[in-house]
């Protein structure tokens, strides 16, 4: 019924507007005006509206900024994140005043200089001095921003410290797996052709470094105050490992190893206290479109003290134990591994569901 009514309403509305236009035009013609010509009233009203519009817009910008401040990410939980947040603040303080200045000028000029028959525009075609001013000032400002930005970037992307804890984050449609390097702090080699059964990451068990690697799903832990070096892999399409609370992100590209390192500075518990949200969790999410369930490819991150972290990691089985054949139920291991992934991801029908 509603589907039938919609076109009817549209047709009626069009007919009404068409009649209204005729009425407007006839009344303009009666007053001896051409209906399309911009009248003195139009100029006055629209210039006033421009002014009101700009003032309203700026008020809306201020209001939204204040109101929505509560939704933006809480204070950074990583060392480098504090620096990028500082850079962001400085950038806001440069572009914010520019935004307000130019909009105020725009609204004011539109308001002040509306067309009047008895005045003429000023013929002002060129001024080297003015143009120099607004070439040089942005150049100087941007040069400082560029230097500040690039030096921050180089600090972040520089080599990780020697003692950084190495963790592999392995992406596939539509879940994450973390692999810890184990006692030797070296990740065993892996390759996509070695993926088989429970060995979902294709770790090369011939490599001696692989034996003590530990694979975890669902959530992974990192110790506060230690540098963590993530190595990213993907087995199917491009994913992006996004950890917004740490201001960290890196693409996971099939055929490539990418990396990012940072130092977490607040444990999950500390962050819960700071945000006043007892359910707060750090999260790893996928931020590169990767298919139907892209919107639900996540893993919880737990930041805790080094002792708690070590205790947690020690309880995890090594890959050797994980992959050891169990005579009675060899297939069960694979199944339970798959189920460890967030259950919701299985609910979305996709052509390439990798869960086999």
């Amino acid at each position, binding site marked *: 019924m509603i589907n039938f009514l919609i076109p009817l309403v549209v047709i009626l509305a069009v007919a009404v507007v068409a009649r209204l236009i005729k009425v407007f035009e006839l009344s303009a013609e009666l007053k001896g005006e051409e209906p399309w010509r911009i009248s003195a009233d*139009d100029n006055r009203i629209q210039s006033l509206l421009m002014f009101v519009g700009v003032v309203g817009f700026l008020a809306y910008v201020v209001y939204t900024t204040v109101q929505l401040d509560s939704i933006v990410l809480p204070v950074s939980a990583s060392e480098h994140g504090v620096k990028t947040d500082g850079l962001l603040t400085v950038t806001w303080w440069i572009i914010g005043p520019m935004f307000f200045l130019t909009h105020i000028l725009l609204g004011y000029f539109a308001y002040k200089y*509306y067309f009047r028959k008895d005045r003429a525009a000023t013929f002002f075609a060129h001024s080297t001095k003015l143009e120099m001013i607004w070439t040089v000032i942005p150049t100087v400002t941007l040069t400082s*921003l560029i230097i500040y930005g690039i030096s921050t970037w180089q600090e972040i992307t520089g080599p990780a410290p020697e003692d950084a804890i190495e963790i592999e984050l392995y992406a596939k449609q539509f879940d994450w797996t973390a692999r810890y390097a184990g006692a030797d702090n070296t990740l065993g080699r892996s390759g996509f052709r070695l993926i088989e059964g429970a060995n979902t990451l294709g770790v090369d068990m011939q490599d001696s470094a692989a034996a003590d690697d530990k694979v975890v799903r669902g959530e992974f832990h990192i110790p506060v105050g230690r540098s963590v070096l993530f190595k990213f892999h993907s087995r199917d399409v491009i994913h992006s490992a996004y950890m917004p609370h740490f201001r960290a992100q890196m693409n996971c590209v099939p055929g490539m190893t990418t990396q990012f390192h940072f130092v977490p500075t607040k444990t999950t518990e500390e962050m819960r206290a700071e945000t006043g949200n007892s359910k707060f969790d750090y999260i790893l999410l996928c931020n590169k479109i990767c298919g139907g369930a892209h919107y639900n490819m996540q893993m919880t991150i737990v930041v805790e003290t080094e002792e708690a972290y070590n205790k947690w990691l020690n309880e995890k089985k090594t890959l050797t134990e994980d992959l050891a054949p169990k005579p009675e139920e060899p297939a069960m291991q694979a199944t339970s591994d798959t189920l460890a992934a967030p259950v919701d991801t299985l609910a979305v029908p996709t052509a390439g569901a990798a869960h086999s």
Partner: protein
Amino acid sequence: MSAHEEHHAHADHGHGHDDHGHDDHGHVDYGHHGRPDFWTHYVFSQDHKMISKQFLVTAIIMGFAAMIMSLIFRMQLGWPGEKFPILETILGKWAPGGVLNPNMYLALVTIHGTIIVFMVLTGGLSGTFANLLIPLQVGARDMASGFLNMLSYWFFFASSAIMLGSVFIETGPAAPGWTVYPPLSALPQAMPGSGLGMTLWLVSMSLFIISSLLGGLNYIVTILNLRTQGMSMTRLPLTVWALFITAVLGVLSFPVLFSAALLLIFDRSFGTSFYLSDIFISGQALEHSGGSPILFQHLFWFLGHPEVYIILLPALGITSEIVSTNSRKPIFGYKAMVGSILAIAFLSFIVWGHHMFITGMNPFLGSVFTFTTLLVAIPSAVKVFNYLTTLWKGNIVFTPAMMFAIGLVSTFITGGLTGIILGDSALDINIHDTYFVVAHFHIVMGASAIFGMFAGVYHWFPKMYGKMMNKHLGYAHFWLTVIGVYGVFFPMHFLGLAGVPRRYYTNTEFPMFDGLADINVMISIFAFLGAFAQCIFIFNFFYSIYRGNRSPQNPWNSNTLEWTTPVEHIHGNWPGAIPTVHRWAYDYSKPGASADFIPQNVPLAPGEEEIH
């Protein structure tokens, strides 16, 4: 051509010059096909004015379709999981029970983006205004090649038809986002849209690139060779300068996209692996290996970034023209405006890496791209301040076109400034691919370009159709549109700063995004308001074609040559000789002149100094 130019050299100064090449046939030349019938006049027309209208109407239809798509996915984002029976009516099995399917969501996002970026803001904007304005404003009887121009439109039409048609196929249209990154786009196993839908997308884009190249070469040749007597490059209206540089950008960058698409077609259909390596999907290791998905991104963005300016420059050129005309004042800093177009165009070729900061590229490269990217702000700032100075002490006539031109200045500022954040690699780490990006490019590129396009339509509608559009509907359209645009996109900055990724079917799976539901509802409501405003425009457009007031020859008292042609279109544009140009296009309110405008074809008065 050479006879034409030689003739220029001998033409008599001060009177228009004859163009015998055309006048010998009479000034009505139908490409040697005799009198036009329906087919040669409306369909396979070689007249640039008709082709311009064909581009515009096609773009309006495509734009409307893309807008409907955005409303559908905004319904899902605003009210996730809610049942909308109308969706099932429109989409059938893709919205069972009225709830949008996640794959269809991604498909709509993809096709919406592709249509708006390519069909509306590249084909539609450049196609319409380059075709209409280049011959009319440089003083040429038509494009250098009417035939190639016609082909350009029909390739565009075929491309648009295939893109729109792909929405209705069984497996759904392409869905890997408009940037179609492989391997997602290369492997049909990865998502349903990467099957036939992706093939059609690639076919459509290939046709589009052909259309764009045919058009672009034509525009360049016409501007360089067919300018009338006296129309030196430094007297060209800024619209033509912008369209010229746009065409150069397109000719240099679109072939690279074509190569990217070609290699992707090979990977998809012929077992190569340019973009594929180490892939295990659907329980199998992929046989072919050894390529790099990142190669595609380099090729794509080598077009993709110039593409941003292919979209933006025509809108800025149109704005320059409209702001000057309606401020009744010369554009401030003509040479700086041309210089900034050239600077932006040059820089646009060396900034593409800022789309790829977090692909694992060498950090040193990231620094280089940060450096070049932030430099773009300098010529952009010059343009903004020059627009503001043009308004200063003007005598501003608020035509609907002028409203949109001022709107463009606002969106260009707002969106441009957030580019300074995104272009900074250190800051991009955390906001890359979030709603902050969506907000940024929709405001700076989407809204600015569409505002420029609307400004152009309102301004040149009288030239295209010989009728005037209704001004009241124009004002209503402007105000509702600008409220819609900022209502939708401004809050998205904060969603981005809250860490919300783009291209998410719903945010409900993450407790950290639970507080954002209200914002998404509000954004969706503003989207509907904006869409309603576009219905006003579409009504005004088609109504005015048939019922609009008849246009006078020069309704806006403008200086450029197109207003010296008769209201009724004739093939060859000017009934007699092509006018000779004696001055730049911006002699508005010149001291000592009787009127507040002096068209370009009016000779300098005795003792008058030429300024530009």
